[in-house]
């Protein structure tokens, strides 16, 4: 087990560095820079600014400096667009927004998805099964940028029940629509995965054994079937995290939330290099470490999985 964790770390850390390097290279290779936009600065001022941020140095020195301050101090420098604000500060300020929406959406998706999927599996080929699977297919097919505005149209602009956008602090009514929009597709995926997993498990020998030895149906389902049937859902956590991140980009833009995703798009459209590298590095680190944790959790949960 320890060897497995060490091996995963040995893969994860270089991957993070590769992601940062790719981003850095793309930014440096692309024509133009932050100052080549519409508001042209006088050459002398631009020269001073470039000197200040170290942009006049040769590329290997810039790369070395960027990587060193990330690896050594976890410091991403100062934003160009939001003058005087450090990238770290922007990240720590916007992270709670994204995290709140993302985590709530994932929990909602898990609860509803597992419930719907289990019931569909238990009543296979019933009307309820067909209806919930058609609904799940709809959830997978309706893009979140269509679902979100339609929810706003119905619940904010027609019924006046919920606020259409903006951040209103952590527990607030503003969160309801973004969370539903973000969770719809995961709810659908998790329902499908749960159904498939449960169907397979319910037919397996150990469930027959559990029933044969006289366990109550409740015990069979909750203690035995659910544990095995949810393995696909656990292994989906990794990809789900990655998709949640891209989902939050869209949801934060639709609902005007000041989260990481919004800053990420803002930074890439404005060529705010330090902020962009900072956010990409931060996302890559979170994502890859989460994936590693999911793999390790998987090995603990399923005794049949063995890693050398």
């Amino acid at each position, binding site marked *: 087990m320890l060897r497995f964790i060490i091996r995963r770390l040995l893969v994860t850390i270089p991957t993070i560095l590769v992601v940062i390097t790719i981003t850095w290279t*793309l930014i440096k290779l692309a024509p133009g820079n932050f100052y080549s936009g519409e508001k042209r600065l006088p050459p002398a001022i631009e020269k001073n600014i470039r000197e200040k941020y170290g942009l006049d140095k040769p590329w290997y020195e810039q790369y070395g400096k960027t990587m060193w301050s990330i690896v050594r101090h976890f410091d991403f420098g100062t934003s160009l667009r939001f003058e005087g604000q450090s990238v770290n500060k922007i990240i720590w300020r916007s992270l709670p927004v994204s995290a709140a929406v993302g985590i709530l959406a994932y929990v909602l998706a898990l609860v509803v998805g597992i419930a719907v999927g289990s019931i569909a599996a238990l009543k296979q080929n019933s009307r309820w099964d067909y209806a919930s699977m058609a609904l799940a297919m709809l959830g997978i097919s309706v893009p979140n*940028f269509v679902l979100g505005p339609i929810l706003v149209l119905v619940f904010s602009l027609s019924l006046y029940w919920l606020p259409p956008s903006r951040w209103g602090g952590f527990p607030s009514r503003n969160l309801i629509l973004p969370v539903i929009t973000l969770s719809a597709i995961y709810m659908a995926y998790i329902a499908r*995965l749960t159904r498939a997993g449960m169907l397979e498990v319910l037919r397996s020998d150990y469930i027959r054994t559990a029933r044969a030895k006289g366990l109550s149906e409740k015990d069979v389902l909750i203690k035995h079937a659910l544990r095995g049937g949810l393995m696909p859902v656990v292994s989906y956590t990794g990809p789900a995290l990655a998709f949640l991140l*891209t989902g939050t980009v869209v949801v934060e833009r639709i609902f005007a939330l000041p989260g990481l995703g919004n800053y990420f798009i803002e930074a890439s*459209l404005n060529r705010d290099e330090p902020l962009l590298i900072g956010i990409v590095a931060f996302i890559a680190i979170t994502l890859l470490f989460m994936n590693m944790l999911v793999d390790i959790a998987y090995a603990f949960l399923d005794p049949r999985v063995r890693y050398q």
Partner: protein
Amino acid sequence: MEPEIKIGPEEALAEDTHAETGEFVHGTSLWRDAWRRLLKNKLAVFGLIVVIVITLASIAGPLVIKRVFGFTPDYIPTNDTQLVRSFPPFKGPNGEFSWKHPMGTDNAGRDQLARVLQGGQISLFVGIIATLVSLIIGVSYGAIAGYVGGRIDDLMMRLVDVLYSLPYVIVVIVLLSMFRSQTPRGQLTLLFVALGSVSWLTMARIVRGQVLSLKNQEFVLAARATGVTAPRIIFRHLVPNTLGPVIVYATLTIPQVMLTEAFLSFLGLGVQAPLASWGSLAADGVQNIAIFPWQLIFPGVTMALTLFSLNFLGDGLRDALDPQMRTT
């Protein structure tokens, strides 16, 4: 784990008399069998019909509109007396009923129906091209890795693992925003490169797995014994046998790629005006959601319906071609 469609001896014999060469006997019956099973699946048939209708409408629609009403998807009316900006569906310039703009017009006065159909052209085109790239690169990469095996296989699949673990949408967003092209066509090409370069990874894994389980079977041994070269074994003997899962996965890749394209276009990084895709049309529509909701609803619903149908078709194909394969 070799998925196999069992055929009864009578059926196989009956097929034999129809087929001209012995090589195709099994193939014909497999496809015919799968086709029969697909037709039994009502949702899959519904999906197939909708996909065909939307594809045909996207291809022919803009031409028909140009013939009947005389405007193209990017036509902006300049005549001041007829400035039909953001008109509701089925309404003429004076609010009377009219067939001219069944989906209304957008902010600039362009016909929404023509734009939705053109958007369909581009969205489907992007989906199909990226899937073709994933087919060509993914299938050959996976088949070669699986057949050659050993250290080369290790190396090739390690590369796939690394690429797989990259948060690729993030990298794609950086790529598209950094190398923003001034022309819509240039941006579209960039989009193709970005989507095509990542879509082949899963395909490579699937094909490699299939080839691994196939390559030790007798027919490969027989081929090798009769002196067939390695490339010929890979592409003539192994790849055709992986077609079932490959087709299923390719069908499910199309809606995924279309969704990614729409997502990027929605963020303003993909297809740009005067070209239209469902994602960019939805992005325009969101701006006006409070006043002109149909500008979002028409492209959004068309896209959702297409993805819905493609997903059902993919699921149906999976059940038909490979009843044992169960993934999401």
